[in-house]
């Protein structure tokens, strides 16, 4: 059996029904562990004081914000090429999650920025890029909502996701050139010793895994909702015909 079998809505519903409770429990536990660890059991940073604790929300949500868009792009491409309905609906399901993650990254960034930089909002390239990403999410969600025929909506939003990705990347570089920012460099890299001390590194990795699990859980849940909505629509249309 190939992996594409799960792209069949019925199979997806069956499998996700079995997996979802475990996934939800695991992500809830891990999220609790990560945030409790990060909030209660990490020391203050010698420069940033206790504000460094915000990193355990800020960095994971920012990573999800970007990767949710990447996932939507990939799911859209799969839909355009292979016409798997679950793929299109998963892209639709991920958009609000990505948008909320972007908002969390922006809000925590602003709250962190105020004591550190002395301002809630700086038009720093990174913050600006996330704001732009947020606008892209809004447009994508609005286009899904505006089109009545779900297959047409899936096609058009996929095209938008492709073109949007190109211009989102362009905007990122435009923002870089436009303003060389205050923002510190990447907090996490392959060569971790250079950036973050171990006391922060392990809870941060835990938090990132927890956010990834939360994202996967929510996307599966919301995809199930979308599949049900499609099923409902199809049944009602059939009734109307009889």
């Amino acid at each position: 059996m190939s992996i594409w079998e799960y792209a069949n809505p019925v199979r997806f519903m069956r499998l996700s029904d079995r997996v979802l409770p475990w996934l939800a429990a695991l992500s809830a536990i891990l999220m609790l562990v990560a945030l409790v660890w990060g909030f209660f059991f990490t020391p203050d940073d010698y420069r940033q004081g206790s504000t460094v604790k915000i990193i355990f929300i800020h960095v994971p949500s920012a990573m999800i914000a970007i990767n949710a868009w990447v996932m939507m792009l990939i799911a859209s491409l799969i839909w355009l090429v292979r016409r798997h309905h679950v793929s299109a609906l998963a892209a639709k399901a991920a958009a609000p999650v990505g948008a909320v993650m972007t908002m969390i990254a922006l809000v925590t960034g602003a709250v962190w920025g105020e004591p550190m930089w002395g301002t809630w909002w700086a038009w720093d390239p990174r913050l600006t890029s996330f704001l732009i990403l947020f606008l892209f999410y809004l447009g994508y969600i609005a286009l899904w909502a505006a089109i009545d025929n779900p297959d047409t909506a899936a096609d058009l939003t996929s095209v938008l996701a492709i073109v949007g990705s190109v211009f989102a990347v362009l905007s990122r570089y435009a923002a870089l050139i436009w303003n060389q920012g205050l923002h510190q460099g990447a907090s996490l890299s392959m060569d971790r010793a250079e950036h973050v001390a171990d006391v922060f590194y392990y809870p941060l990795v835990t938090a990132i895994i927890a956010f990834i699990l939360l994202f996967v859980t929510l996307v599966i849940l919301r995809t199930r909702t979308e599949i049900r909505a499609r099923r409902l629509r199809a049944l009602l249309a059939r009734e109307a015909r009889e």
Partner: protein
Amino acid sequence: MNAIELAPYRDAAPLEVRDLACRRGERLILEGVSFTVSPGRALILRAPNGAGKTTLLRAIARLTPPVRGTVSLSPERMTWFGHADGVKAQLTVAENLRFWAAVHGMQDITPALEAFRLADLADRPAAYLSAGQRRRLGLARLLVARRPVWLLDEPTVSLDAATVATFAGVVGAHLAAGGLALIATHIPLGLAEEDVLDVTPFRARESAEHAHDPFLDAGFATARDGREEVSR
């Protein structure tokens, strides 16, 4: 009435439709549609509204890609005329027609104007045409496109009897030149070369609709109780 004569179409070929299945929106409307129209013949599509005449024509034109089946001729040999006539009110009659002629690589629009009795109105802005004149201008596009296959969706709606006769004459000339036409209409054109196809029998069966739409799959009913199934 048969004063119009069209230059014969080159390499006339029959339009063969085999086992076509077409959809409108998410829904499968027609399946198993097969027929052949030879050059020089017109096929009248007959069916109640909503049965899928427009859907079938759009599928043959590949505007809506068919779900299944084959159409022997490529859309490059077809021209389409639907409910909306594509006439621009701000342009004159001649400008409207000259545009479509240029798009199709044609120069001379006089025969088309004459065929539809529009020659006197050539310089009038389309905004000042009567509904019937406007419709005739829309139909005149068929002649400047010079395509052997005409797909016509209710072309005679809102035409008076005289104009229907004019139009029937033009279609007759088109057929005489080796063209062919598919016409969805309620009003008989009274062409000598017409066959009638009732679309109703091709309505998609429920089982086919279910096979087409994965969200109508019967498996869903059990998927609801997925856990039960696992325990079994």
